[in-house]
């Protein structure tokens, strides 16, 4: 409702709550009629991270769900924050995406301001302060991992603003499946190949045991030397190759009669539309 004096006040940026009352009224009316209001697309995810001998490995699945429908079969859940700090996002997809983008910009400004490379603790602190400010309404749970001057660190931040610092972490709807693999086989100071296999197995556990996670496994290996982003590291849900052929050889059935009726058609217009499949 546009009151006459409202435009006279200073406009500020940020969230606008004008429509919240209308939305609650709409939702209650819709539920009376039996319809459901549209919900935000969540990622229904399995994300995981471990600290190994030389650094940090982050892993994620690649399915984004819209309630019970798969909205995206190959989305990227490992986001860039700084040259050696990456962040996996779970929860509401848009919130996780925009939160990590804001964080990346803030970290860059901070680096330009102080002239020092960023610390993972700094990223975590800014994240938790922002998420606490919005009291959990920004529904993104994140795992932040990276290497800075003090070493390799791994933090997880929950939507309401709490955080944990641990050697291995999992988040998302498939967290329980993934953390069971970690609890069984994690050792401190693992080698690279062993650690990659462990993260891959944990994400695969989430993919097979949780309905909200699926498709491929993405890995991101962060060390002092640099970052290796392995998109599509493993595709455990790829269809298998068929073993036998089920086609009959030509000549198996005898041909009795053959009639050919040509249809005269002219090609009027031909157009090619390239579909973006990657």
């Amino acid at each position, binding site marked *: 409702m546009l009151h006459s004096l409202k435009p*006279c006040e200073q406009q500020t940026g940020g969230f606008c*709550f004008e429509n919240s009352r209308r939305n609650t009224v709409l939702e209650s009316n819709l539920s009376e009629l039996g319809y459901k209001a549209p919900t935000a697309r969540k990622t229904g995810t399995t994300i995981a991270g471990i600290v190994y001998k030389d650094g940090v490995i982050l892993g994620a699945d690649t399915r984004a769900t819209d309630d019970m429908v798969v909205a995206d079969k190959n989305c990227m859940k490992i986001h860039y924050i700084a040259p050696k700090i990456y962040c996996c996002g779970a929860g509401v997809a848009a919130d996780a995406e925009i939160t990590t983008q804001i964080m990346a910009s803030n970290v860059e400004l*901070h680096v330009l301001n102080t002239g020092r490379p960023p610390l993972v603790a700094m990223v975590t602190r800014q994240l938790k302060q922002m998420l606490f400010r919005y009291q959990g309404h920004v529904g993104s749970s994140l795992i932040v991992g990276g290497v800075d001057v003090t070493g390799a660190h791994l933090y997880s931040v929950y939507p309401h603003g709490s955080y944990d610092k641990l050697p291995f972490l999992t988040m998302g709807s498939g967290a329980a499946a993934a953390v069971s693999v970690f609890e069984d086989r994690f050792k401190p100071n693992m080698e690279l190949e062993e650690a990659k296999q462990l993260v891959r197995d944990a994400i695969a556990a989430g993919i097979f045991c949780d309905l909200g996670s699926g498709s491929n496994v993405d890995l991101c290996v962060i060390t002092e030397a640099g970052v290796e982003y392995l998109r599509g590291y493993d595709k455990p849900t790829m269809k298998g190759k068929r073993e036998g052929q089920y086609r009959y050889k030509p000549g198996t059935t005898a041909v009795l009669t053959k009639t050919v009726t040509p249809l005269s058609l002219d090609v009027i217009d031909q157009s090619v539309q390239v579909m973006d499949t990657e």
Partner: protein
Amino acid sequence: MNTRGLRSQLKDSIPVAGLCPQGQYGVQDSLRSGFTSAKNELLPSHPLELSEKNFQLNQDKMNFSTLRNIQGLHAPLKLQMEYRAARQIQRLPFLPSSNLALDTLRGSDESIGFEDILNDPAQSEMMGEPHMMVEYKLGLL
């Protein structure tokens, strides 16, 4: 830190609307503020609405009170004088002002938040009515 002092300074930071209607003589001003409803006045439409509206204000108050406790009264006094001066550098009310000096003082020119991305006042589709806004600013309305 003197938490009791902090609380006494923060106790009036979130004003509760609706206990005293806005129009002249305390009567509801339907033309300016729309129709009334007790629920509209007392309950915010969203749990974050009140805290977001006063966020900057509360941050400033907390920072100033901490500064006062650490460095004495002179520090927040000087800073608040600078803030007041910077806040007066504005264009005409219906035009968007950059608030550059104020942002620099607050340090918000070095960080990006939702207030810079969403609902940017410089890109709003509506402009206020110039005459009405200038009269409001001058207190003639």
